[in-house]
């Protein structure tokens, strides 16, 4: 894990309000695993003050990482104003990342909204492994918000899309697609596990479905963060009652957790 000032080698708005930024950081790209994230210092001054955490959405060219982000507040707004050639301080790669699980069976990737970011990186890595099969389910509010794996990764990964308003793909939550896939395969002998990232409500639903189907499930969580290093103890989530601890630090014990390790009743809005 390193801290460096990375040059922005590319930056574009992929759908309204959502941007894809490429950061030249060979030493981070070289060791990054899917599910890991970076802390980016958006401003040069004191406003915004703290770094903001963003998943790595893929590796690009030699030594660049991709960050796919949505403008939701001051930090992301400042980031969106940056141009290619500008430099930003980043810290990473951070966190544990997804584990590939049983290589013989296909992985099911489920992403909602910006939650697709770490799954795109995972999809890219799985394609790299070649023999590893997987299915990618992505969900968005509507067609206008759809983030396409092939557009963002330059990979032909055919994602199965769901939209809340039905303007594209399945009309309904992305979890319907997962549910169908799991039901189509009773005892789910054909599922090597589920990897999910997105809104908490969606993740909770994924946890319920996978538990019922007896399929192992990893979820990537979010929390407000200060250090990203496990030092401030600011980023915790409630651990399930069975766990030996009350809380997990998302930045170091996570952001990826076994679905059953999380106390969903107290997982909160985001």
């Amino acid at each position, binding site marked *: *894990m*390193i*801290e460096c000032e990375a040059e922005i080698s590319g930056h574009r708005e992929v759908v309204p309000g959502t941007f894809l930024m490429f950061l030249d950081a060979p030493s981070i790209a070289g060791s990054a695993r899917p599910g890991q994230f970076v802390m980016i*210092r958006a401003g040069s001054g*004191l*406003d*915004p*003050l*703290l*770094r903001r955490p963003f998943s790595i959405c893929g590796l690009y060219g030699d030594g660049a990482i991709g960050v796919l982000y949505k403008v939701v507040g001051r930090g992301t707004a400042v980031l969106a104003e940056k141009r290619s050639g500008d430099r930003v*301080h980043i*810290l990473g790669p951070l966190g544990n990342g997804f584990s590939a699980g049983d290589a013989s069976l296909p992985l099911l990737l489920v992403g909602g909204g910006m939650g697709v970011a770490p799954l795109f990186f995972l999809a890219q890595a799985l394609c790299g492994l070649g023999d590893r099969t997987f299915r990618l389910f992505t969900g968005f509010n509507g067609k206008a918000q759809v983030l396409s794996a092939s557009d963002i990764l330059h990979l032909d990964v055919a994602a199965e899309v769901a939209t809340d308003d039905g303007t594209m793909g399945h009309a309904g939550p992305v979890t319907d697609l997962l549910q169908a896939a799991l039901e189509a395969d009773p005892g789910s002998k054909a599922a090597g596990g589920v990897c999910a990232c997105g809104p908490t409500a969606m993740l909770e639903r994924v946890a319920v479905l996978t538990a019922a189907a007896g399929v192992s499930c990893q979820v990537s969580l979010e*929390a*407000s*963060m*200060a*250090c990203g*290093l*496990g*030092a*401030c*103890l*600011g*980023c*915790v*989530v*409630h651990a399930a009652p069975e766990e030996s*601890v*009350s*809380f997990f630090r998302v930045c170091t014990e996570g952001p990826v957790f076994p679905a059953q390790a999380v106390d969903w009743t*107290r997982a*909160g*809005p985001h």
Partner: protein
Amino acid sequence: MNDVHPDLSVNVGPLELKNPVMAASGTFGYGREFGSLFDPALLGGIIVKGLSLEPRAGNPPPRIVETPCGMLNAIGLANIGVDRFLEEKLPWLEGLDTVVVVNIYGHCIEEYGEVARALRGVDGIDALELNISCPNVEQGGMAFGTDPDASARVTEKVLAASDKPVIVKLSPNVTDIRKPALAVEKAGAHAVSLINTLTGMVVDVETRRPVLANVKGGLSGPAIRPVAVRMVHEVVEVLSIPVIGVGGIMSGKDALEFLITGARAVQVGTANFVDPRASLTIFHDLVQFCRDKGIARLEDLIGTLVTAP
């Protein structure tokens, strides 16, 4: 001048620091978290996360939120407890050639004494720092630090139980910071550090709830620096024991404000989150400042503030 090496060593009472830049409690973990980014032994000292006798889980999330030029935290003094600290954390810290200070707290005066006793005679711990900003359960949850008498009694209790120099960390949430400062000096404290966080609150106007699950939290970061410098100024005027300055230090220039005002050392907190190498950069800034100004010993800069018109 640029090739000479200014002497940055300072002493804080019985503590000899190779330089005045220390990492503030709760913002630097147990040091090791930053070990892959730079060698923490380059700092004047490391103050570890507040320690209690038993492990504490801390507050439910959200625990932190950014505020203008600052942040609120309500970690709830989560920590691994004395035993695990001694087993898992101290050995690595002991290996570092720098001053290691253990920040301790309790929810009653007895508990402070117990933690101090548990650390008595332990090698590798150079001093204790008492966090008296935490709620005094015996006295209705009002912080010890806001009551000069309670502050003094906590100090006495720890001094009686410990064989180490004792630094008392003062709370800024008081009418007159000189009162608790004088009280703990009288009680025998070897030094004071200030300031801890100012109590604050942020409301989420969408949910109409406080952003922090704990409702209130501690405000830190550059936003509070002017208050910290003012309080250090007030305290150095009346105290004879050394003062350590803390609050919003982001750069060498900020650290110099405290040193010139009379602090013999400084602690860097929130800045460690903004830039994990901040404390090291601040140390380098101080070296450069001394070179530029032809100051051979940083010691000569301490307390040189001129207030006469």
